[in-house]
């Protein structure tokens, strides 16, 4: 079966202004949400305690809240997690208390109050200083990944392509973060890992398109930059959609069957794949085109008559 068995000739670049506007609006929304309400950081970053309990019967959230309140844990947030039997309790960092023992105290209180057995499924405690370090390290990790990629793409292609691919990456990361911010989804360590994976994935996509753009530039004798990029995008369209589809399939399987713990992770990946596919067509190529890439820029450096070779591999 062939999804696109004739040669397609969508005029992608013809709609690039509309796409640019569309992206700009989304980015603006994402950035203003990030600035105004920020991210709903999980305890990995803020510090605090998280306890997941499984009750034999349906867990009575109000009763649990009451028990916790009467024992002085006023700040506890109690929610169902995954099913009606399971409860997730979050406690913020409390000063001047032995934080590490907090989870045991809370569990002890609830066990005394409950008539049935309680199974402690998971406890996570992160001290405030550890959280701060993670936030810093996480930001640095993203920065290092971007720089590393920028260098590699500059070496393999040309600086305009590097800027194009990094623009697409920043676009993808910002939009994904934006969705987490707008809907106040919890942003924990696994989401950070997902974002870094998105950086890898989105780039993968962009590189494939760029590879084709470069090849088409070198192959075609005639035609303007816009036309050439359009041809390249159409040539790779079938592959772009196929790969996105297979990756989406497994991520959906992760989302549906992977359990509550990696829900946020799979949501981030789902978003990233959709946005990443779109951005490799519209953002990355758009930027390259806007920066005025031409055939001469992509010719492999030839050393004839001792001609100087520019930093970007072009001949001057």
């Amino acid at each position, binding site marked *: 079966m062939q999804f696109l068995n004739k040669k397609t000739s969508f005029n992608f670049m013809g709609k690039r202004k509309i796409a640019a506007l569309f992206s700009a609006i989304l980015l603006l929304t994402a950035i203003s949400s990030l600035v105004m309400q920020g991210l709903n950081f999980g305890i990995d970053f803020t510090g605090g305690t998280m306890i997941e309990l499984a009750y034999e019967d349906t867990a009575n959230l109000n009763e649990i809240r009451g028990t916790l309140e009467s024992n002085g844990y006023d700040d506890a947030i109690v929610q169902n997690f995954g099913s009606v039997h399971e409860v997730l309790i979050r406690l913020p960092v409390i000063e001047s208390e032995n934080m590490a023992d907090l989870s045991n105290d809370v569990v002890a209180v609830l066990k005394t109050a409950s008539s049935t057995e309680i199974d402690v499924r998971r406890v996570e405690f992160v001290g405030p200083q550890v959280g701060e370090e993670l936030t810093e390290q996480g930001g640095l990790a993203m920065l290092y990944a971007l720089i590393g990629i920028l260098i590699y793409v500059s070496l393999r292609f040309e600086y305009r392509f590097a800027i194009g691919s990094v623009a697409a990456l920043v676009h993808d990361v910002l939009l994904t973060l934006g969705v987490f911010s707008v809907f106040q989804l919890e942003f924990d360590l696994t989401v950070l890992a997902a974002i870094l994976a998105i950086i890898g994935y989105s780039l*993968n996509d962009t590189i494939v398109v760029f590879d084709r753009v470069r090849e088409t530039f070198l192959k075609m004798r005639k035609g303007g930059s816009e036309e050439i990029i359009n041809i390249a995008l159409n040539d790779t369209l079938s592959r772009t959609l196929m790969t996105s589809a297979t990756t989406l*399939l497994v991520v959906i399987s992760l989302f549906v069957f*992977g359990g509550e713990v990696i829900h946020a992770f799979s949501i981030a990946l789902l978003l990233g794949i959709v946005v990443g596919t779109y951005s490799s067509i519209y953002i990355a190529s758009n930027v390259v085109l806007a920066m005025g890439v031409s055939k001469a820029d992509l010719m492999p450096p030839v050393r004839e008559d001792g001609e100087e070779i520019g930093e970007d591999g072009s001949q001057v």
Partner: protein
Amino acid sequence: MNHYSAWKNSLVIAIIVIGGLFAAPNLFDDDFAVQVSASRQGNVDLTLMSDIEAALKAKSIDYKGAELDGERLLVRFSDADAQLKAKDVINSTVDNGNYIVALNLAATTPDWLAAFGAEPMNLGLDLRGGVHFLMEVDMDAAVKMALNSYSSEFRTLLRDEKIRYKKIQVEANKVIVGFRSIEHRDQALVRMAREYNQLDIVVLEESVTPSLIASLTEVSLRETRLTALQQNIVTLRNRINELGVAEPTVQQQGDNRIVVQLPGVQDTAQAKKILGATATLEFRLVDNEHDVKDALAGRVPANSKLYQRRSGQAILLNKRVMLTGEHIINAASTLDQNGSPAVSITLDGKGARAFSNVTRDNIGNPMAVVFIESKAETREIGGKMVKVRRQMPEVINVATIRDQLSKKFQITGLDSTTEARDLALLLRAGALAAPIDIVEERTVGPSLGQDNIDQGFNSVMIGFMFVLVFMVIWYRVFGAVANLALALNLVLIVALLSMLQATLTLPGIAGIVLTVGMAVDANVLIFERIREELRVGNSPQASIHAGYAKAFSTIADANITTMIAAIVLFGFGTGAIKGFAVTLIFGIATSMFTAIVGTRAVVNLIYGKKNKPKLSI
């Protein structure tokens, strides 16, 4: 014509065989087991094994087998119930002081596989259940403790040298010594600078009282911190032994943190208590005038107290403490004049003075070293939960005083260098363990662990199935070939994880799932290229050739950039993220091989020899 040379085909086959071999041990379910290992003087040998087997038979508990595996003894059971019962039986059979009895899971790798060194991969705490602690050593306290002992040494030194000082006080990171006069100060500066080259000693200008400031040099500051960290690691290891954990991990992380992982531990409250306990040391004279038997019968002499030795023997010690561990500055295992193992101990000034007085009067008498752990316990008293500290003294060594002892002395009469080393460790740990705080805890209960395994396995399998079906529909025979490569890719990832004994975590499984999705990308690229070549009218054989050749650089670029992101993830990594990065890195590497070389080998096999084959793509 497309065909691979013999060596290329055999390379593919060799990798499939080796991958299969190393991945195979993961197919066998683990046995429930009880693990017995030696602490202190215990010997894990055939005698112990037959004792335990006899005890199990006496209680008619069925076991699958018992085996000696290096330093440990494993007894296997067919279910968790028998395992738990057996643990109690074994616990009461062996001497608790000398053995650690712990629940464990034992791999059931067949001998012929084990002969190749193939082992199943490790499961992370989130899959098998257990506790992960990140503990932080209070380095300020460690430095302060070091400065405190220097300040008392200064007192002794200055008094001995008859240099008159007004006061000595310890501040944040320095010791300030105030003198009566500038002459005294300068005299002291010369003397102290000669004695302590590990300290920076300078004159404090603009001070009413002539004063000196002593602070640790950069080097000795680093050393002090490092020692504090290492001592704490040693102390933690010793304490974990008490918890009876099968495969604990205690590792340094950064320059002031320690990671403690305890697989299978459920009672985190107890674990926290034991890990957070503080220990001290005491030296006491042995009471030789009274009979231990009388004391055991209840007639304990007024000036003495009953203690237990490590062997379990009772011993009578004087109530008066000769010296406490806080005066110990250092302890190291060495050899005495006769070349037998000993521990050399360095005391601070105050301790040395006190010690020399008592030992002068007691030459020829035996002296005991008592190791006291004080453990915090929350107990219910009068209906309220109260935190109580409980002291657990244990006599770790008894030696005869041969001489008047002072600042430096040796404990001799030890059985082995191992014992000397352990004693030195205990002494150091008891003397200078800087306080520790738990700064991170991640506990996963056994039920969640099993759920994570099931859900992880399911999502990999279902995602995998989706992709398989999708690929066959889209690319027919070529899709089926890509599917073979994908399956091989999974096998190779598992084989690599097992070979390197890496730890598989839930995020690691997510990494595998993601690799499955991305691994087909390489094949999609190749197949789309082949279709393009066919479309422009090239011959099938030329199309296959060109498809692989043209797609290669794209695949390489795409994978290398993803690899960069994965490596950054790994470098940044704390536990969860590292797990994800490891499988992603392995997945990228193996998928490059399977998707390019693997599929090509099969495609060549199917179409390579035919003249004008009709490609099913």
